[in-house]
């Protein structure tokens, strides 16, 4: 925590310096973005995974009604089956925020963070649908969260 607190001001300096430097020196690595914005991007995606989780639950509910449908019927179903439609709308909102985040973050970090959605699905299905929460599930959730944390940390290289 202390490290983060001390790091934030220096990040701001980097942002200023980076802006000047990048216009003078031709860096071979075009991906150099200031760490503060990169962390912000990771945080945005991490928060948005709740949207993904709700969308996935809605899509699963909708998909169950279409288990025997063909490809075309599934495509039409996206607009005619309310849970599917709502699910995909949420996906749309997520995509907008994801694109915004991608401007400042690495795709190899941000894309796997979406896996946090599974954690939300597990939590939501326990809270909303009263599905049993077994120890293995808790361990799995902890491991995924740890993985995302390691990923977010390592992004700054």
């Amino acid at each position, binding site marked *: 925590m202390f490290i983060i607190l001390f790091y934030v001001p220096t990040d701001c300096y980097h942002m200023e310096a980076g802006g000047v430097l990048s216009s003078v020196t031709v860096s071979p690595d075009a*991906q150099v973005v200031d760490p503060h914005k990169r962390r912000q991007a990771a945080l945005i995606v991490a928060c948005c995974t709740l949207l993904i989780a709700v969308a996935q639950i809605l899509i699963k509910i909708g998909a169950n009604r279409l288990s025997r449908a063909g490809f075309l019927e*599934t495509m039409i179903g996206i607009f005619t089956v309310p849970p599917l439609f709502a699910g*995909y709308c949420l996906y749309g909102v997520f995509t907008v925020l994801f694109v915004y985040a991608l*401007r400042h973050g690495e*795709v*190899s970090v941000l894309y796997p963070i979406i896996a946090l959605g*599974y954690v939300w699905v597990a939590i939501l299905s326990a809270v909303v649908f009263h599905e049993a929460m077994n120890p293995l599930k808790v361990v*799995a959730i902890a491991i995924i969260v740890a*993985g995302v944390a390691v990923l977010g940390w390592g992004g700054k290289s």
Partner: protein
Amino acid sequence: MGRQKLTTPVSSIALVLVASVIGSAGAVFLKSGAMNLQPNVSSIVFNWRLALGIVTYMLSSVLFVKGMSNGELSVLFPMVSLGYICTLAWSRLFFQEVITRAKVMGIGLILLGIIFLSLANK
């Protein structure tokens, strides 16, 4: 517990695998589209990379829905993580992103967690 008969059709497995690879490609297109964005409407509307990214993403979701609609979630679920590994390769190829130990560890942990989660859902 006896060994259960495999109830997940191969077609579902193939669909989900293809969907996850396509999905990772979609993320790559979205990224390259996002880099080209300027704060005006035409740069957003006429951004073919972004459009391609969204179409690819949607296609991936449709295939995903098709694949998930019949078959065991515990088998199909972990296959999604293939997309994360693909993204690691794509991002190195196209955006010169470095594959750090933290990224490999993070994705590895996520994969392990997803496998545990799908086992727990059985």
